[in-house]
């Protein structure tokens, strides 16, 4: 009996560390909050795969144990700032402040990207992420639903002082994906491509750049405030940045 329990436990741990579940999304036409140029009011999202849940501490620990250059005591400072994985109790130990089933946070874009690459996957790009995150439990595009909007905005309004919940607790959306809203912020491959104004001659002035970009975005659809918050946050980051509630999930399939 005892050994049967041991076997069961081992299986459970094995399953947690195994490759994450990828679910198919798309293809479809989509009106993104990021303007794609005058000629194209909507963007085509090709079929892609997205992980059902964000990457967990346990999964990321298994990764850094095999890819030691991503341990917090070894990572090159070009690739991650000083807070990288700082809530783990040691470079190779999660400890009490980082439970295995919580989403991994305080990871940089470079680290997230390297993790996905090692799984034979990649980071989703913004359009893919936004396409998947536009869904609620019943419909593929719930962005005009005031309930969808207020649920997201409520989360933005919550103080980020409580411990992060474990992954997989949020509602399952139209595609079977969880935790796109209400748990963490997530890296995307093209995080540094979102707020670029339509005129490159403005680019020398970052203040003007952000103003123009944000102006163009908000004009497209004021109802997209919930998504604009994401973009504003991602735009504030550098590739080596980490944050307490910033994690990621991987995607598969051909990048568009």
């Amino acid at each position, binding site marked *: 009996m005892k050994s049967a329990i041991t076997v069961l436990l081992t299986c459970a741990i094995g399953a947690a560390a195994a490759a994450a579940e990828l679910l198919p999304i798309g293809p479809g036409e989509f009106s993104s909050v990021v303007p794609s140029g005058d000629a194209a009011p909507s963007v085509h999202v090709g079929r892609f795969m997205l992980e059902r849940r964000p990457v967990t501490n346990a999964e990321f620990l298994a990764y850094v144990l095999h890819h030691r250059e991503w341990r917090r005591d070894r990572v090159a400072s*070009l690739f991650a700032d000083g807070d990288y994985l700082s809530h783990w109790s040691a470079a190779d130990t999660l400890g009490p402040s980082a439970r295995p089933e919580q989403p991994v946070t305080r990871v940089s874009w470079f680290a997230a990207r390297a993790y996905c690459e090692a799984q034979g996957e990649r980071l989703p790009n913004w359009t893919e992420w936004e396409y998947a995150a536009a869904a609620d439990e019943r419909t593929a595009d719930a962005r005009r639903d005031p309930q969808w909007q207020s649920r997201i905005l409520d989360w933005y309004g919550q103080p980020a002082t409580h411990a992060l919940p474990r992954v997989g607790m949020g509602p399952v959306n139209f595609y079977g994906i969880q935790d796109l809203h209400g748990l963490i912020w997530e890296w995307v491959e093209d995080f*540094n*491509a979102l707020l670029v104004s339509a005129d490159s001659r403005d680019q020398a002035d*970052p203040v003007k750049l952000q103003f123009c970009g944000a102006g163009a975005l908000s004009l497209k659809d004021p109802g997209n405030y919930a998504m604009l918050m994401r973009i504003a946050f991602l735009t504030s980051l550098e590739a080596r940045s980490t944050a307490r509630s910033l994690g990621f999930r991987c995607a598969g399939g051909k990048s568009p």
Partner: protein
Amino acid sequence: MRRIRASLALSGALALAGLQPAFSQEVTGHHHHEDMPAGIAIPGDSIYQLPVTLQTAEGRTLPLADLHGRPLLVTMFYSRCTTVCPVLTAQLQRLVERLGPDDRQQIRVLMVSFDAVRDTPDVLSAFKAEHHIQESNWIVAHASADDVRALAAALGIRYRELPDHTFNHSALISLADREGIVRARTGELAARDDAFMRAIHEQAAAKPAPR
């Protein structure tokens, strides 16, 4: 490690003798990059930490890290760009012209294209000819889309490909020291940026770090 030391010593000897080794020999004549990560310690904040491989306008494969050893002016562009890129290129040329001859010999210039698909070596060669870029220490190159994204991220350059395959991008020139650590940046495209000029001079005058 020994080979790198030897190659640095050789460059030093040539420099003392008043000879400038031809760029093509210096960069592509050695294939030390394979053993570089284990061989020499690249500072943690160096851009040479990036496993980025360039392909130059001349069609040569050039690991980014092979550019270590000399100060580097680096920017990103694409050849079909008609708005900001000609201004950016002209500003880089002005920066180099204003340097003293000694400083000019020390530095390298690197322009990497955002357009991994269309900016082939032939297209980039035509770009160099059009802009009269002849200096052997001025590299125009492209890289895979993944490498372009990583380099842009490390340099803090934002860019986005539009449906018509043009790119919106920030126009930023970075100055990396001999070890690849970014020491200064400028977004000034028209006027003189004296602080940036001073930074280039300081890096060009700084002695190579002993190995």
